[in-house]
């Protein structure tokens, strides 16, 4: 019911997002899903008949199709399997996948919409205060990797729900690897107090 694309609760009397009293919410950035159309597809025919498709067999074995609404890209393989990326919510991903199915159907292939599965959901969030990666790495060494030589952020792998969280010193974090939106929020709920305890004290 609640729209998950928001950054914060709608309210006029707290304009300062960076105030720590307010509990920010993660924004979904990308949802990746796969679906099986159940029949072999002729990619050459598809690229010839569809406007929004590109197919370069020497570079990659799949055709790339894009639609405007929801703004997504699909990789179409000749086996009949599709990867749909770029949607902002799970529902949008489903709609987009079905749109692709309809397009392919109109091109004359006999398809069925099988095994639609969300593979990955990525969200970002801003906790609003600088975080000490050094301190975090001293504490929770089991779950995290912090190699400043390799990557400026700290990678925290949460076991339950199984997600990876990238933490940056600016206070922004990225949560990725979830299969459901609830997992994202659960992960954020788990990590928020941890992050808060590691913020830079003034």
């Amino acid at each position, binding site marked *: 019911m609640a*729209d998950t*694309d*928001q950054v914060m609760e*709608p309210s*006029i009397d707290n*304009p300062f*997002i*960076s105030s720590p009293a307010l509990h920010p919410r993660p924004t979904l950035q990308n949802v990746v899903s796969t679906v099986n159309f159940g029949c072999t597809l002729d990619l*050459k025919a598809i*690229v*010839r*008949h*569809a*406007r929004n498709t590109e197919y*370069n*067999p*020497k570079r990659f074995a799949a055709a790339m199709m894009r639609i405007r*609404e*929801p703004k997504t890209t699909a990789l179409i393989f000749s086996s009949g399997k599709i990867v749909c990326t770029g949607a902002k919510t799970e*529902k949008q991903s489903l*709609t987009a996948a*079905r*749109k692709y199915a*309809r*397009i392919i*159907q*109109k*091109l004359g292939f006999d398809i*069925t*919409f099988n095994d*639609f599965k969300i593979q990955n959901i990525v969200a970002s969030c*801003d906790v*609003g*205060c*600088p*975080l*000490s*990666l*050094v*301190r975090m*790495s*001293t*504490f929770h*060494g*089991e*779950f995290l*990797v912090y*190699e*400043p*030589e*390799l990557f*400026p*952020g700290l990678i925290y792998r949460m076991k339950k729900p199984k997600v990876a969280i990238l933490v*940056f*010193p*600016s206070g*922004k974090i990225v949560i990725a690897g979830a299969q459901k939106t609830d997992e994202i929020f659960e992960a954020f709920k788990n990590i928020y107090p941890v992050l808060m*305890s590691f913020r*830079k*004290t003034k």
Partner: protein
Amino acid sequence: MVYCNNCSRNVTGERVYDGPLCCTFCGKVLEEYNFASEPQFVKDSAGLSKLSGNFVKSVQDISDSRRRTLDKAFDDMRCMKDALSIDDYSDDVVETARRFYEIALERNFTRGRRSELVQAACLYLACRQKKKPFLLIDFSSYLNINVYELGSVYLQLCYVLYLAETRDLQKLIDPSIFIHKFTNVLIPEGNDEVVKTARDILASMKRDWMQTGRKPSGLCGAALYISALSHGLKCSKSDIIRIVHICEATLTKRLVEFENTDSGSLTIEELTEKEKELRTSSLTKKRPNTGSKEASIHEVLCKHMEKKPFAYGLCEECYEEFMKVSGGLDGGSDPPAFQRAEKERIAKLSIEENAKSVSGSPFASGSEKPENIGVSEGATNQAAMDERDNDKLPGVDGSDDESDNFSDIDDFEVDGYLHNEEEKHYKKIIWEEMNREYLEEQAAKEAAAAAAKEASMANYDKCPEDLQAAQELAAAAAEVVAKSRKERQQKRAAEAKKAGPAQTAAEATRRMLDRKRLSSKINYDALEKLFDEPVAPEKPKKQRNESHSDEKEEKVSKMGKEEGDLVDKYDDDNDEEGDEGGTFDNNLDFENEVYDYEDDYEYDGF
């Protein structure tokens, strides 16, 4: 430990030159056995000489090839160490690295990875442990591989060696260790002052949180640059870049960031003074002010399990180290990354506020997203779509009913994505033009395949007989090769069952001989003659575990072993044995010898 009467105590005896065992204190001879360490030979029952003793698995328990692998790895690591001049005086680092490599070998970490990558990762890990100032980039430039590739191998190695779980808390690199090394490269002599100032600058950078998320080399480069310039030494940015492995843009950025901090405006003397003060004040070892949450931490998070937590959940030693490496957690300015982000946030906020005040109430109450003001159309479309989706929310199962007709999807829109006839035509031309090489390759491949097939077909038509003969041969060969013993046995059993009981005694014996594979030793004429005689006498009682075997079979088999002439003699023997058991044993051995041709004595099918 042996007991010595003289000393009236247990002593560890001493054995000199493999001679008698003597007491270590008084020298009394305790045991007089002499040991010889040369190989001894004994004669076994048949009279052959054999080496005495047993073969025992060696204590080391490493196979030859593994030892070779380890030695090769050790040599390679030593070469690497020399090339990077890690440690000129001792093999310490390489020893540690070698031990890591051994563990990695045992855990099959080297499979599927280039051995030099694994060696470099082990060596890098050893350097980290010993706090040697070497970067991953140094190793990757020596090996000419992507630093991120080496980095991923290194991380996987840490995981395999359980470094995370043993709370070893891979110490973060302290950038200060690099200062000495880099300064030596830049200014070979008389660089103490520069080193000191650079250290101070670095310490203040750490306090100002410039360090988090940054490569240590960048900070070192900036600190060194400032310090060198402030001491009047002429060094350009390109010198620093060459030594420190960063690019000019990064160096400039670090310098700008440092300028923005408080310490950036101080002069060198002021900076040095300030640092000295801080160093002396920290010697009082004041406990930092931590929040109430942390008071509940009773055990330490570092590996020193037996010590009490001093601060931040670390024991005192680790706390000191932590402060040195990271510059502490209190005070200082915000990290530059945060400063940038904060600016963005404020900018965004001001835009929103402006937009809000302009658009007024209707939008704020209707659409919940102030960001969509610029894309109002998209917002309404999306809201409508979301509603539709909401109605069909139950998930994929619910929508399976419509999955095949997709009636909920806007046909008009879908049609918009498809070409009309003219476009199709042109698109075809364009695509084929663009991918011409690929199409040509495909055509060539297909042509080659077709030609090959045709050739084989043509061959087949030309010489059917030869081909058939060849096929038969192949089939026969395949048959022989593919058959295992079991298959053969099963086949035999099947055939025997199929054939039914033997019609004559002669046939029965022949079958048995076929099975026992004695056929080459049989005189078939004698066999025929045998069955013309009257029935043979009672056979002796059998020791073997057969339920049904013909007496004649037995006789014939014995005959089969030797010449046919011995039959009569044997009959006599058998007659006698019926009464006595004396000579039976010899007979028995003979029986067993005969039937030793096959391992299993199954008489299946008979």
